[in-house]
């Protein structure tokens, strides 16, 4: 049981990084992004390419993060901003992200093929840490997630940019009227979301010990589960949702047939929606 919770914490760390990035983007842009999973895959592949070119693993992850951040901005400038300018409906934006998902995922197939790849670093040996059983890789993932999430928290809370980001998320028109360059804030948000996606993608590929073009697309719905659970457009809610989903998946996997453990997470989301449609930490005007 305790070991399962330990594994759950690792899963939660991976999901949390992805979910917070997505949730941040959703809170600012106000539309769900189905291409986010493919951003994760893209970041993981760029890191893989840099890593196999001989770069140090952590440097490679940083390269993947920067590349995906730029991909996010590029997507925003070429696809999403024209729609927003025309005051397109949220649903239109949502569907255009599906088109983007097709494009990114299959560009990855064309560039890197459909075979399964691996990083040159191994996930290391298992260590007993208190009651938990973690590999070196697991601990690196958790520390990274903790540092990134803490950094994001500090930035949102204590910097001028964090303040303008929160203002834009809360009310874009009012933020614009107060002299905040909301277009720039949106671009920076895409940068951050892309970076988080890439790091989460690498962590996920390390966890699964395999890298495939559908890596992020398949994980996307777990990430959605976390952000729905926590309340859509609430980065802190996304952390909570990821924690619940991560632990629940692994603990249920220890007791039930592990094949169903993915479904358990979704079933919890569906049940929660029956009881509390706005999620645990609801954001006003974002979920109703």
């Amino acid at each position, binding site marked *: 049981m305790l070991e399962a919770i330990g594994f759950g914490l690792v899963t939660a760390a991976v999901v949390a990084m992805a979910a917070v990035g997505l949730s941040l983007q959703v809170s600012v842009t106000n539309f769900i992004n189905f291409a986010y999973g493919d951003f994760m895959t893209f970041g993981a592949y760029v890191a893989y390419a840099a890593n196999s070119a001989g770069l140090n693993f952590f440097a490679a992850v940083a390269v993947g993060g920067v590349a995906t951040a730029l991909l996010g901005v590029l997507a925003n400038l070429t*696809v999403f901003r024209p729609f927003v300018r025309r005051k397109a409906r949220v649903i239109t934006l949502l*569907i255009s992200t599906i088109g*983007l998902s097709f494009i990114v995922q299959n560009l990855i197939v064309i560039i890197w093929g459909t075979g399964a790849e691996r990083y040159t670093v191994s996930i290391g040996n298992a260590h007993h840490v208190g009651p938990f059983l973690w590999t070196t890789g697991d601990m690196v993932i958790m520390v990274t997630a903790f540092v990134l999430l803490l950094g994001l928290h500090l930035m949102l809370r204590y910097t001028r940019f964090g303040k303008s980001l929160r203002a834009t998320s809360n009310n874009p028109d009012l933020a614009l009227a107060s002299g905040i360059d909301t277009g720039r804030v949106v671009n920076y948000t895409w940068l951050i979301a892309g970076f988080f996606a890439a790091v989460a993608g690498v962590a996920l590929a390390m966890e699964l010990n395999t890298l495939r073009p559908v890596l992020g697309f398949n994980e996307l719905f777990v990430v959605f589960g976390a952000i729905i659970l926590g309340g859509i457009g609430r980065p802190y809610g996304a952390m909570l949702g990821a924690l619940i989903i991560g632990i629940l998946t692994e603990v249920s996997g220890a007791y039930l047939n592990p*094949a169903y453990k993915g*479904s358990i997470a*979704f079933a919890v*989301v*569906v049940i929660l*929606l029956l009881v509390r449609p706005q999620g645990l930490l609801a954001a006003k005007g974002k*979920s109703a």
Partner: protein
Amino acid sequence: MTYFLIDLLAMGMITSIMTIGLNMQYGFAGILNFTFYTFVGVGAYVTAVVTMGTPSGYGSESYILHWSLPWPIGLLIAGFVCALLGLAMIMVTIRRLRSDYLAIVTVSIGFIIWNLINNYIPLFDGGNGLFGIPYIAGGANMSNVQYSMMMGLIGLVVLVGALWLSRRIANSPYGRVLRAIREDEVIAESFEKPVRRARISIFMVGCFMAGVSGGLLAYYLTSWNPQGFLPIESFILMAALIIGGTGSNWGAIVGAFVIVELLTEISRYIPTFGSEATVGAVRAILIGLMLILFLMFRPEGIVPERPERWYRTGRVPGSEPSGLVGAIKRREAALWPSRTRQPLA
């Protein structure tokens, strides 16, 4: 070549039934169902297990029911089972959720269903899927081409039925309520339109279509497994509908033939420039690009939705006096057009 063409027509008919069903949900009522193909998949399974009887000669398949009903009944049962499944799903998702979040939840539920079917072997034989679904209407003695032709004809008959139903709904007061909900739910509600009931019922009708088309697919392919209804299929159907023309029945059919079928089949004839995966990837990129470009530059799709008759002619249905008075008024309007209200542009 001829076989591919006939196969394309037959598959196109079946896919058109799907896009018409999806069009009822998304095009008429604006309900984003991103797991439409799950209902197609379930429909295929249900049709299979109620018609194929006890397993014979195909190893140890395990599945429920073992009925051997006539094939049209199998299609109907599939339709009704999917309608009920749709009812269960819409009851969960409809609760005060913004439409795009509802879309995500549909994907999650689709995933649960997929996972259950893939892993719970006693239901539909798990990941192995079902083999030896019977050929229908004496198809066992036919050649491939003949069977495709016959399935194309059966598909056409069902498609015409679906089209008829869809038009009836679109031109009825119920259809107008649905479009009102699509445009603005709150206004529709403030006019005391039965928003909730209308959405639930049209969702069920759409799922019925999915079930029937899935049943036809099962009869045509004679085998079915979880790899046949991966989440991506629903997205492709959605792209097909939007490129074809949201809200338009002919648009739905054009989308099904051009986007889903023609693009698949045409990749057999283009010179290979890489692995098979690359060809599939190019096709998906093409769909993605077309989807985005259409949303940007022609959001109404290839065949746009026809405006309502009163908008084209200026006559509001039901407000025209009938009988003798109507005849006199129409005569008057023809003689002195300036006295009467002009049709809208």
